[in-house]
């Protein structure tokens, strides 16, 4: 009985299918966090930083020794 052989064409096709599948998975956000959650400080606009998944702008009140955080309005 002849065994099916695996040639380079089949390997290339399989790789191409894998690549397309990976691309489709990567480009969809199904099952992933929404775009509003930050993972990195550079996800937030300049002057804001990421804290527990949310972009926060630190505002220093001159009349107060402490700092207050407000959520950045244009978080990605």
């Amino acid at each position, binding site marked *: 009985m002849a065994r099916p052989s695996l040639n380079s064409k089949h390997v290339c096709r399989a790789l191409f299918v894998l690549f397309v599948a*990976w*691309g489709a998975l*990567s*480009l969809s956000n199904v099952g992933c966090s929404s775009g509003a959650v930050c*993972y990195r400080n*550079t996800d937030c606009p300049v002057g804001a930083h990421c804290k527990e998944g949310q972009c926060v702008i630190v505002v220093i009140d001159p009349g107060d020794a402490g700092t207050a955080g407000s959520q950045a309005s244009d978080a990605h």
Partner: protein
Amino acid sequence: MFELTHVPKPKIPLSLRSTVSVLTLLFALVLASDARADGYVFDGDFGLGSGLEGGDTGPGKLGWRRARLRITTGIDLRSDQSEADALGFRAFAEIEKRATLGGELRYERWISHSVGAYAGAIGVITPDTLFGGSVGADIVIPFGKRVGLCLEPSFSVLPVGSDLPSSGPLIWLLLSAGIKLGL
């Protein structure tokens, strides 16, 4: 008529003979190492990549999302004496959201001309920093003698840097596709 006379052999001092021997040996060594000098083979590549990015989204929560699209370019440098081993340099720029610039230094081991694996250090240097390690594979589908389509799945963990909002690492599961060119 010829008169045969015995000409005494000139005596060469031992020190001179030793000096000449040592110098000859040294010259031989120097010349031999020059002749043995390796040539290097360069491969250049250019590609686009994305995938999944995992990170800390709150206390103890690991979230996943699509990684930023990146442009990658670089070279592989290998000795013509041992083409299975290579040193790879990559520069990449993430071009979504706030653009970043980073690089990678890796040791590559090629199983054949078209399949290889690598491990190395990866980092983002601006506007914030990220540093970590990376492993991955290279699959080259040749289109000619010197050109090929290169697919590169990779896994990176970046636990250090000012771009991290917490102590949790950032994880990249990426796939890059591009052109590999024998230079």
